[in-house]
């Protein structure tokens, strides 16, 4: 498989170079799909050049004819999409008064979000204008020539790219084992400080692997893939094939750097203060302000801590303050409505914890996060179902 092949969607130049051939649909050949070692884009590009005269005369198989028809339709469609996209981009550019040539994708996104402001929460749901490649999923080029002979040696496994990947992983692992053998015989220890740092990484999840391989994978196959990857990573000389491994590792979000800490503002008496809006818990909604150089006074809806009669709710307010050792040094004002005592105290607790983040050092923020103070508790009361007394409780069984 040493041939370097580029596989890409039935590209434009196929149409350009031998348009006439296409009409009588007798000779269009697609060169074998292959996989470039450098960048693993399986499905984006195939180079086509005139096929040798010998193959032209053979009869084109029925499957190939069907495939050709689909491919040409797809290309027509993509071509028109491209044209429309270009025209749209030009209109947008001069609508925004920018120069059409230098109008990049970021400019397009900005313009769209400016022209079509949308309150939808999920960014994917908002209006967007993306290039046709992103909008329409890539499709694999032809995997077999016109006589029906597949290009990929593992074509008949049904998922050539996937099994090729497994094959390569095992190859790497064997290579590392041999290296280890040699090193052991020579008595050389694997180099410690180059050890592969995998704490912050996770093996590529199934859906991302599928988009990368342009093949759908069964669960069992995915577990095989992740097991073999684990074995590869576990081997002591894993850092030797770091490049290969890196390609199939997804960096995990570093939870602690996740939330950006707001800067405290200054109020009229010159005291630092932070307000967190929209502190939610069950059905309670609260806004909490924390002022830094304070005396430990707390006021909820105007009343002091006796707003909550039961001890448990007061203890909830005490938890974040006591945890971050700012109990007597901070003033808290909260106005809260909706929900019951435990919902309201939970909302205020979360609000206080979020406000305290900007008065405390990073290491304490991390320990607050580990204590579960900074996570929004979005558990909601489970709905009551018909035919049952409550969410889970069934009606008592009556004999008659």
């Amino acid at each position, binding site marked *: 498989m040493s041939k370097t092949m580029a596989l890409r969607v039935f590209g434009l130049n196929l149409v350009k170079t031998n348009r006439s051939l296409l009409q009588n649909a007798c000779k269009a050949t697609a060169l074998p799909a292959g996989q470039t070692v450098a960048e693993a884009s399986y499905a984006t590009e195939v180079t086509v050049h005139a096929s040798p005269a010998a193959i032209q005369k053979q009869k084109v198989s029925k499957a190939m004819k069907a495939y050709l028809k689909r491919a040409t339709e797809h290309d027509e469609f993509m071509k028109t999409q491209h044209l429309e996209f270009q025209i749209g981009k030009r209109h947008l550019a001069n609508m925004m008064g920018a120069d059409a040539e230098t109008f990049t994708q970021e400019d397009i996104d900005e313009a769209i979000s400016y022209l079509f402001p949308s309150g939808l929460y999920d960014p994917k749901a908002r209006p967007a204008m993306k290039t046709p490649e992103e909008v329409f999923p890539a499709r694999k080029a032809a995997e077999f020539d016109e006589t029906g002979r597949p290009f990929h040696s593992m074509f008949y496994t049904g998922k050539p790219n996937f099994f090729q990947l497994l094959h390569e992983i095992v190859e790497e692992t064997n290579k590392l084992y041999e290296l280890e053998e040699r090193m052991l015989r020579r008595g050389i220890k694997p180099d410690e400080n180059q050890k592969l740092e995998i704490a912050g990484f996770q093996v590529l999840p199934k859906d991302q692997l599928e988009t990368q391989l342009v093949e759908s994978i069964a669960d069992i196959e995915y577990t095989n893939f992740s097991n073999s990857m684990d074995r590869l990573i576990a081997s002591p000389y894993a850092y030797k094939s770091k490049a290969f491994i890196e390609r199939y590792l997804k960096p995990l979000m*570093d939870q602690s750097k996740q939330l950006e800490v707001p800067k405290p503002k200054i109020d009229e008496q010159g005291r630092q203060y932070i307000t967190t809006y929209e502190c939610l818990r069950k059905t309670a909604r609260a806004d909490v302000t924390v002022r830094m150089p304070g005396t430990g006074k707390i006021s909820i809806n105007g009343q002091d801590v006796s707003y909550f009669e*039961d001890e*448990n709710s007061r203890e909830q307010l*005490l938890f974040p303050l006591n945890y971050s050792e700012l109990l007597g040094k901070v003033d808290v004002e909260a106005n809260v409505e909706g929900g019951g005592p435990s919902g309201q*105290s939970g909302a205020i607790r979360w609000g206080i914890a979020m406000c305290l983040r900007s008065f405390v050092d990073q290491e304490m923020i991390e*320990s607050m996060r*580990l*204590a*579960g*103070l900074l996570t929004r508790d979005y558990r909601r009361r489970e709905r009551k179902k018909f035919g049952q007394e409550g969410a889970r409780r069934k009606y008592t069984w009556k004999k008659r």
Partner: protein
Amino acid sequence: MAVFYRIAIQSSIYGCRSMSMFPKHFGDPLRKKDMEDLNKSELTKFYHIPIKAALNNHSDTVFSDEIKLKMMNYITKNGNKALARGLLSRTFEIIKRAQTERLHLSPTDKQNVNTNAEKLLIEAVENSRPLLQLTSIKRGGVNYQVPVPITKKRSYFLAMKWLLDAAFEKDKKVCLPERLAWEILDAAHGQGRVIKKKDDVHKQCESNRAYAHYRWS
């Protein structure tokens, strides 16, 4: 804030029952003292996993303690945890009253009178934790009482349950906290109904030790 909300929703998409439980990969919240004895390497493991929200009855303050919380949950009936908390604090009060009076009456042996109600409760539970338990196993149509070793968690549960059963077998006039306080004091000093019950269980196990090999067969 929006970022935060998105994470919660996004991480809940592929979680199971999204609105009533946290997804599986969320870690449990750690108490402050757990964090101290976790060394550096274990802590880094936590940097990359999101943590569940702390429950609304857990708090690292001076008022909350593990065994006390568990005891309160066992006392709670149809969700009235505030009442259970009141009952438990009255129990502690009665324990302390008895101990402080004993302390003041005999100021000579000051050190062995322990007026810390929580320590007494812990001691009582430790003393009344059973080692084995009898389970009935059906062999050849006959139910044999087979002695089975029990896990640590279950032994704590049994100890507390026996304490509460003894307390609930009170007559009308006596209030629960009073009766529970006497039980805890007795158990802490090693005598009383709960300790007797534990010894009975051990004796029964010992007498049935012949059936021990019937287990899991």
